[in-house]
């Protein structure tokens, strides 16, 4: 989230699209309710009428997989009717930037310039700015140049007429117009809209472009950086924000630094490759500091071994240099092809949550061993005894390690709003009377590492150095100790980073500003620098209480701060002067540098005055800093005086990117149908059926084609989507083992319209059989008015009625509440940029069981 949950209350318009926050992020509704009480409008755009929609003033139905069309239509409406925040668009976005005249979009073919059909990828040369002599982008402040981003967008989106939007999405035209008008009304300087999105947006072959389209719309409205604005990804698992910050995904290392690849032959090369460049002195280009962050990270990992010229520089070559995709689908394709010996399944249950379970459950069988670390013996841990499986044929050895739950562990957790909060253990896993077998994940990692290291020390093998040299001391000694839990504060302090003097730690880093690329600082994750600042050896002992302050009177562990702004006179004074409430600057800590609303420099004009004086985020106060002037309010995106630096400090040019070359599948979002589309191959908007830059795991090697068929719309005419319910959690182990929740939702069911039910002759509560090209499942039918067939118009202009069904994906065969898994139906098909599975739009057929 650019903003945070509490901030939603400040929005004039809330557009919930691709999210069902009422069911999946219930607490957000408290703030939405508050906003509605104050007169805000909630727009909910979802294929089905959800519990979120029940609170919405405007509900816009749309067929799964058509968000770009919907948003494209709104963008078209805004551009056509001049419903944009002009001042913002010119000063804070790249709308005025001139683009390479070679750039273009070929509507007939449905591809952007530079497409290489053989490689199914783009050469991006033409997706670039025209530069002036100094190497800075050329601009046309009048926005009239046909090659400026603004004009290119205008041209691109003219095809997205209300009729087209309605024909593709199925959203009635009048509803669409109402949405467009309501949303674009926030182009007024003092009106603001927020966009809340989640998996309804991302789990598509165009998932990343979906998000791009939301972000662009918000830039046009001038809604980013403001209170009540922003583009808010509602994160999923409770600490998924923290996990991504810490590089859960294969393409980053901590702090969102890019994972090194084969081309990064040494540290210097890597730094060159990852550091964006600009010649514009007014661009802060924050990532020009990347060298400091990577060096400090290496220092933190390999300590004294990491010297300036060891192993490619600070042991850089200890890092793996992976090549190609290593996402979930790819890993399972490789596993299916027998390329893995073993797998650690750590706090997840892919036997329910993974796409195309037909294929993935066979992939498990190819493993020699599997270690499951979980609270429950879930479907993955028991894949070898799943119904219909021949246990005797499976050779995989499965180990189940009982993990301690979140209530049993102290540590930090990062929420969607980037607030990193310290929590305490309610009870320890080793406490008497408690189940003593479970251990914290940290204990398991610590022990596992020590054991691995011991093995390497015994028989060094090929490349032992990264392991044996790793800086590893979390207070449990050198050998395995069953009863000693690692010190989580030591971990937190390492993440924050520290200064090094004479090869020894010399105090905590106060913020990432002090990090250096000469080996004099270490930092586990630069964006968390400043979170745990006040430690010295003496304080360490009492640091478990959050009120411990360091010698400078600061909190040692800022994550543990719990001061409500209601109790802060200074904050209250600013709120009286119009600062948005609910920022809670002294409640926990927020990365980066405790900034609650990122890109907040965009919320002020060139003079430093907020566009909205009633709920401002930051504003320039010339009286501060002994008359030199400073921003007050939130922590600004850099201290520089207004007008002296461009607002978007994380990109090289310093401007919000309406046109962006970063993605693999186009600089502007364009509508492509899902791989399985009711239109078949005929995309009404352009000549390309589905995203031309995605991986095709249903083509290529024989193994890839196996069990991953793509369905024809003639055989599978019904659109299907999968989603969550308030009452269950994810792959279900945590809730389907819980009697109270099982009581609420005991059985696997699917939702469908009365019209479809009538057509196939079923009633509410009947059993139905769903099939896709991959597999089939049986479920109860919940027949409801909340689903309605879509009236679409195909490429030839013919009207067609398309049905959609909804499938909760939480079920499996373990636990109390059992049922078929929706993922028996889903394909190994993913987004062009991330390969996140297209869980949200595929085709199926439904018949009476």
């Amino acid at each position, binding site marked *: 989230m650019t903003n945070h949950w509490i901030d939603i209350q400040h929005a004039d318009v809330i557009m919930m699209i691709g999210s069902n926050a*009422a*069911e999946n992020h*219930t*607490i957000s*509704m*408290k703030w939405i*309710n508050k906003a509605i*009480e104050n007169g805000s409008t909630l727009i909910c755009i979802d294929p089905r*009428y959800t*519990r*979120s*929609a*029940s*609170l919405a003033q405007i509900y816009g139905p749309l067929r799964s997989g058509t968000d770009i069309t919907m948003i494209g239509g709104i963008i078209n409406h805004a551009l056509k009717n001049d419903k944009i925040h002009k001042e913002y668009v010119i000063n804070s976005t790249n709308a005025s930037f001139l683009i390479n005249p070679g750039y273009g979009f070929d509507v007939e073919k449905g591809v952007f310039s530079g497409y290489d059909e053989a490689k199914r990828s783009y050469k991006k040369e033409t997706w670039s700015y025209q530069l002036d002599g100094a190497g800075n982008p050329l601009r046309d402040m009048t926005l009239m140049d046909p090659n400026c981003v603004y004009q290119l967008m205008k041209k691109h989106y003219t095809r997205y007429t209300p009729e087209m939007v309605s024909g593709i999405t199925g959203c009635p035209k009048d509803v669409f117009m109402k949405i467009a008008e309501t949303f674009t009304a926030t182009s007024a300087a003092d009106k603001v809209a927020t966009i809340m999105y989640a998996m309804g947006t991302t789990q598509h072959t165009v998932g990343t472009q979906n998000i791009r389209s939301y972000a662009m719309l918000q830039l046009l409205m001038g809604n980013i950086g403001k209170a009540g604005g922003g583009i808010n990804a509602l994160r999923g698992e409770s600490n998924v924000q923290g996990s991504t910050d810490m590089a859960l995904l294969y393409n980053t290392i901590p702090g969102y630094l890019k994972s090194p690849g084969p081309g990064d032959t040494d540290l210097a090369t890597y730094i060159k490759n990852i550091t964006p460049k600009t010649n514009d002195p007014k661009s802060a280009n924050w990532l020009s500091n990347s060298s400091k962050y990577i060096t400090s990270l290496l220092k933190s990992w390999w300590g004294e071994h990491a010297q300036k010229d060891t192993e490619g520089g600070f042991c850089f070559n200890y890092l793996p240099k992976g090549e190609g995709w290593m996402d979930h689908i790819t890993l399972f394709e490789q596993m299916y092809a027998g390329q893995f010996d073993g797998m650690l399944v750590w706090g997840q249950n892919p036997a329910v949550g993974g796409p195309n379970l037909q294929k993935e459950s066979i992939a498990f069988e190819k493993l020699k061993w599997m270690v499951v670390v979980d609270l429950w013996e879930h479907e993955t841990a028991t894949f070898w005894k799943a119904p219909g499986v021949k246990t005797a044929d499976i050779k995989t050895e499965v180990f189940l390690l009982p993990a301690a739950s979140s209530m049993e562990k102290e540590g930090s957790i990062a929420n969607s709003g980037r607030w990193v909060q310290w929590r305490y253990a309610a009870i320890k896993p080793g406490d008497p009377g408690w189940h003593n077998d479970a251990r914290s994940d940290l204990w398991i990692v610590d022990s596992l590492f020590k054991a691995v290291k011991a093995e390497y020390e015994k028989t060094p093998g090929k490349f032992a150095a990264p392991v044996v040299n790793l800086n590893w001391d979390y207070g449990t000694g050198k050998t395995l100790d069953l009863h000693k839990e690692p010190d989580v504060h030591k971990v937190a302090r390492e993440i924050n980073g520290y200064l090094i003097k004479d090869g020894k730690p010399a105090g905590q880093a106060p913020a990432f500003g002090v990090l250096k690329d000469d080996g004099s600082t270490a930092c586990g994750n630069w964006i968390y620098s400043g979170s745990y600042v006040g430690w010295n050896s003496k304080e360490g002992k009492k640091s478990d209480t959050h009120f411990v302050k360091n010698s400078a009177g600061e909190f040692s562990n800022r994550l543990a701060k719990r001061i409500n702004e209601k109790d802060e006179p200074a904050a209250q004074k600013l709120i009286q002067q119009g600062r948005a409430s609910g920022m809670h600057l002294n409640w926990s800590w927020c990365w980066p540098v405790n900034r609650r609303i990122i890109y907040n420099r965009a919320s002020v004009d060139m003079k430093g005055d907020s566009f909205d004086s009633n709920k401002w985020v930051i504003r320039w106060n010339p009286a501060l800093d002994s008359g030199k002037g400073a921003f007050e309010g939130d922590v600004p995106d850099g201290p520089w005086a207004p007008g002296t630096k461009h607002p978007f400090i994380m990109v090289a040019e310093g401007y919000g990117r309406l046109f962006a070359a970063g993605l693999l599948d186009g600089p502007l979002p364009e509508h492509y149908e899902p791989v399985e589309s009711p239109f078949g191959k005929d995309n009404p908007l352009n000549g390309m059926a589905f995203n031309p830059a995605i991986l095709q795991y249903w083509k290529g090697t024989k193994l890839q084609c196996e069990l991953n068929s793509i369905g024809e719309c003639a055989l599978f005419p019904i659109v299907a989507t999968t989603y969550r*319910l*308030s*009452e269950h959690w994810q792959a279900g182990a945590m809730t389907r083992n819980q*009697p*109270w*929740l*099982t*009581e*609420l*939702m*005991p*059985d696997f*069911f699917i939702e469908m319209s009365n019209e479809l039910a009538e057509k196939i002759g079923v009633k509410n*509560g009947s059993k139905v059989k769903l099939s896709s090209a991959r597999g089939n499942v049986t479920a*109860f039918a*919940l027949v*409801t*008015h*909340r689903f*309605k067939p879509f009236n679409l118009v195909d490429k030839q202009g013919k009207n067609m009625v398309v049905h959609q069904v909804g499938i909760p994906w939480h079920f499996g065969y373990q636990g109390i509440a059992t049922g078929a898994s929706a993922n028996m139906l889903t394909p190994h098909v993913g987004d062009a940029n991330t390969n996140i599975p297209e869980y949200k739009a595929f085709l199926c057929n439904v018949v009476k069981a």
Partner: protein
Amino acid sequence: MKTSINQKGFLIDGTKCIGCRGCQVACKQWNELPAEKTEFFGGPGYQNPAHLSSKTYTLIKYREVMKDGKLKGWVFHKDQCQHCLEPACVSACIVGALEKTASGPVVWEDKKCIGCRYCMLACPFNVPAFEWSSINPDIRKCTLCSDRIENGLEPSCAKACPTKAIIFGDRNSLIKIARNRLKSESAKYHQHIYGEEEAGGTCILNISSIPLEDFGYPKNLPKTAMASFTQPALRSIPGAVIGLGAALGLIAFIANMVKGDEKDSSGQGDRS
């Protein structure tokens, strides 16, 4: 029973409720109630179980609202004991096992109950529930978490509600809040505070976008306490007994004595 000023209660605002059922689970958790065995759904929408019971003190009901054949909304309602100001159940209970406490909650006393279930019949909202498979069955229902209230906590369901659809407080101030909401967002609400007057008034006040009757609440529920229907009959009894005694004496006197000392025709003259 006098309505005390500081009776506590809930304002349940259906327009803020998202049907998440956090309240339903929180209630089970605090009251240590077991789960019920359910299949598919026990009512419209996601409703489960089918009704309140000895294991379920509160329940979210779901209604799809249609207008001209089109879906107009999906509305949720939290069903539970309404903690009537003058409860039918309390007046009905033969041994006074149900009690209206001064602070609002209507609670049941294990010691006294004889299990006659008249309270269940009497309650216009079908709230009290019985343990049908117990040897020593209890009457069970929402207690307004009186045990929590007594210790300065708000009831479990209200605490759990993420949207503030349930607010706990003094009945009088809740009525004010409800009136304000009906006025300031008038289009959103069905203009009625259910519980302000129903059955003589209840501690639970409900506002919603649709009439509560659409959730199965009784139609034409009188504004007077349910007990007002039995009280006249009951109150007349002592007088009736006295009158009847005198009348019978008089008639017997006239019939047996004034008419003359008629001989016992059966000749039995015995004691019957």
